[in-house]
């Protein structure tokens, strides 16, 4: 017989809002990184804030762990229910609740897919600026939880700069409406705090987001290089000369090959060692001047060719290729490890060369793409999770790359979050005190640590704080 609490949940979300058979639950084992897997005990698919609130109240009473899930495109195991329990999927909460073209604001349910907001805003000449490469699949709620970035965030800023308000459901079912006022935050900025909290503070159910006016003119430049180093140097030069393109991306040779073999083939030359993709936007005059200034700079670094996209169609193709890059790697091996490190832009060239060396030493297939403008690089390692030895080498390489970036003054993650995958690395970057403080902030939202347990903050840090708080004499 079914447990009483499950029957209660069924009554809240309805028959189509609950997944409870082992086979379907199997499909919820992992997000974008399949190396980390755990089958949930139950999946809920609520439709409204009220349903989420009532479900969370029941789970609070039963002390059951909860993991929010958008589209499961995360690349750090954030939506993987390591501790079992209930996955709360936002996949059926995808309505646009309000779109105000004058105030340039949209209020949406958190399960709306990123691209669908831009499509809805398009008829008003507006778009939603943060554009993760997964934008045709990932949810806006997931973007908020990860503070996601994207190629054009170089100019427009990452998700946090576009979130005006939130409606949240806390672990005990309390609804916290932080959607008014729609101006700069008063008091403690709870909205700002929530963005990037990786599902540990509560479930976002409604988002108030800023829309951006479409630029009058956009030009896309594709520069072709015979060496990856030269492409990196060109980026440094661009930044040094204070040019402000809206996006600066680099793809290396193996990535180019994979993309060109896929449905997103963009016409990148297959013989190039690297291509640099630059978007310039603004008024017609501004764009023309920028392009005229940027082109010679890039050529001076040895670009063998610089092309300007001739049509809107061609521009879209060039970007679709970039955005399909990760998935296109599926042609090379069954699995992909996507590192997501950040370094000061001046260190790009050095760090890239070093990661290549690491991969070579460990006999791994490495393909690198990066949001060069932000110094955010994704060394992607293609592997097969059925090969235990290869998995070990991949993980070692991942660790070495992170150490390398910390040493270069960089960070563990540019945009994919810490999740499960980078959990141990937190202790390399942060002190005990840092982590203990994070832990206390988290417990202010979720005292029992039932929301997405086992992620982001190493458990040891939390337990240590707990003990210290319980027995003050141990405080040293």
């Amino acid at each position: 017989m079914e447990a009483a609490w499950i029957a209660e949940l069924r009554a809240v979300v309805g028959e189509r809002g609950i997944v409870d058979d082992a086979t379907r639950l199997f499909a919820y084992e992992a997000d974008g990184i399949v190396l980390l897997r755990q089958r949930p005990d139950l999946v809920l698919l609520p439709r409204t804030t009220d349903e989420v609130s009532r479900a969370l109240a029941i789970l609070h009473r039963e002390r059951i762990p909860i993991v929010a899930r958008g589209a499961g495109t995360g690349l750090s195991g954030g939506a993987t229910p390591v501790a079992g329990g209930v996955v709360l999927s936002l996949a059926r909460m995808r309505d646009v609740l309000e779109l105000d073209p004058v105030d340039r604001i949209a209020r949406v349910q958190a399960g709306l897919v990123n691209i669908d907001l831009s499509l809805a805003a398009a008829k008003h000449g507006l778009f939603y600026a943060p554009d993760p490469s997964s934008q045709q699949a990932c949810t806006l709620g997931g973007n908020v939880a990860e503070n996601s970035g994207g190629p054009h965030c170089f100019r427009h800023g990452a998700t946090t700069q576009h979130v005006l308000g939130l409606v949240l459901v806390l672990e005990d079912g309390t609804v916290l409406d932080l959607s008014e006022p729609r101006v700069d935050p008063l008091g403690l900025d709870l909205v700002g705090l929530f963005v990037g909290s990786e599902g540990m503070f509560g479930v976002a159910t409604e988002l108030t987001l800023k829309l951006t006016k479409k630029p009058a003119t956009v030009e896309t430049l594709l520069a072709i290089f015979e060496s990856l180093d030269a492409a990196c140097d060109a980026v440094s030069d661009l930044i040094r000369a204070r040019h402000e393109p809206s996006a600066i991306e680099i793809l290396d040779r193996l990535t180019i090959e994979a993309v060109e073999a896929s449905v997103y083939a963009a016409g990148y030359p297959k013989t190039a060692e690297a291509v640099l993709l630059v978007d310039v936007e603004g008024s017609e005059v501004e764009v023309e001047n920028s392009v005229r200034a940027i082109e010679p700079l890039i050529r001076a670094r040895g670009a063998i060719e610089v092309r300007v996209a001739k049509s809107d169609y061609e521009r879209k193709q060039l970007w679709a290729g970039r955005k399909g890059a990760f998935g296109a790697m599926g042609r090379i091996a069954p699995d992909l490890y996507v590192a997501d490190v950040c370094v000061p832009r001046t260190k790009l060239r050095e760090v890239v060369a070093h990661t290549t060396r690491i991969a070579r030493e460990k006999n791994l297939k490495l393909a690198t793409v990066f949001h060069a403008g932000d110094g955010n690089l994704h060394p992607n390692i293609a592997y097969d999770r059925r090969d235990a030895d290869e998995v070990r080498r991949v993980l070692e390489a991942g660790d070495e790359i992170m150490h390398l970036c910390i040493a270069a003054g960089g960070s563990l993650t540019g945009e994919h979050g810490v999740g499960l995958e980078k959990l141990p690395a937190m202790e390399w970057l942060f002190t005990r005190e840092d982590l203990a403080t994070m832990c206390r902030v988290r417990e202010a939202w979720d005292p029992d640590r039932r929301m997405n347990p086992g992620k982001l903050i190493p458990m040891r840090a939390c337990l240590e704080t707990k003990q210290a708080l319980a027995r003050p004499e141990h405080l040293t």
Partner: protein
Amino acid sequence: MNLADPKSLVEYAATLDCIHCGLCLRTCPTFQLTGNEASSPRGRIYLMRGVAEGEVAGDDPVYHEELEFCLVCRHCESVCPAGVRFGEMMEIARDRSAHTAKRPLLETLARRIGFDVVLPNRALMRLAMSLLGFAQRSGVLARVAPLFGARKDALLALPAVPPTSEREPLGLRSPARVLERGEVTVLEGCVMPELFGRVNRATVETLGAIGFTTRACGTHACCGALHAHNGELEGARSLAKTTIAAFDGVADQGGEPLPIIVNSAGCGAHMKEYGRLLADDPAWRERASAFSARVHDFSEFVAAHAPPDWKPSVDASDGARAFGRVAYDDPCHLCHGQQIRKQPRELLARVAGLECVELANAEQCCGSAGIYSMLRPADSNAVFEPKLAALDESRADTLVTANPGCQMQWQSGIERAGRNVRVVHLAELLAEASRAK
């Protein structure tokens, strides 16, 4: 198939192509309906891999249900950067799962009669359609339909079977209407000649208008696409061979077999893949590939071969009334299965006096999906709903498709909703527009 060897139940190697990126979720109609990841392409592939690796039982009824729920629209293939061959994987998984999952006796019987007896045989299909026509006209159908439970509405929504005079096979040779530029042959199909003889005739008429003589392929009936999509690969292979043999016999004076024009997207997509279907059969492999290379969708062929002086037009006064604003809806097996998107639009743009508008979600499945609308009418209708909304938004007066299955689905959906929109096959519109005014 062998449950003890789970790797044999799916195309295991192909499941490894999926990198679990999730980019295919949003476009999948069944995921849109349910929000359930097991009903998404990524989820289905994950389950298949789970079967092969022994984590999901090969005869698990839920796994089987997720396979059947899929429309095999192949939209996921169009967006998958890793090049996952989903349609092929699904055909294989269904074929092998069908042996392990237990279907109710009546369903098995219906499948055997349908797939093994009626579809491949033109005379029996004709008889079946005559009976259906009689049942429709006499009101018997309305009375017996409720016996079919959930399928009642789908049965009643079947288009009226035209009078016998409109169900005659094509003439053996239909000469070009202008200076002859070549000869072709067409796939008449299994259900097509019975329910959509007018589309076949319009196909021949349009080909004639651009200078091609059409030669019919005798009594050939079924290409086996429905078999393959529904997990009847053995039947599909045998029909593929019959089809190749029949069409190889329609040759020009030099003995070269003629190009084969197909006006049904699902059949065309399938026939273009005979090479793969028979890849393991050394006696047929090469012949099948050569055959596939000769298969062309109607729109593909006409767009490539229409002479510059072919100027189809609809008369402003009469044509505008007949067609009005026209919206083209991409059949899945044309856009996702054959990458044909531009040609039908180019052809419509070529018709003088026609006003064309785009449909918001033209590449989204309409829910017809071969015999899916018969097998799962409720799901099929739910998939259709957003399509109707897009049609309303486009304010089109005529909906143009390039696949008879979609044509039926649109026709019945529009009637059910009480809209005043005409549904035509591209060939019908072009034939009308090429007629001398």
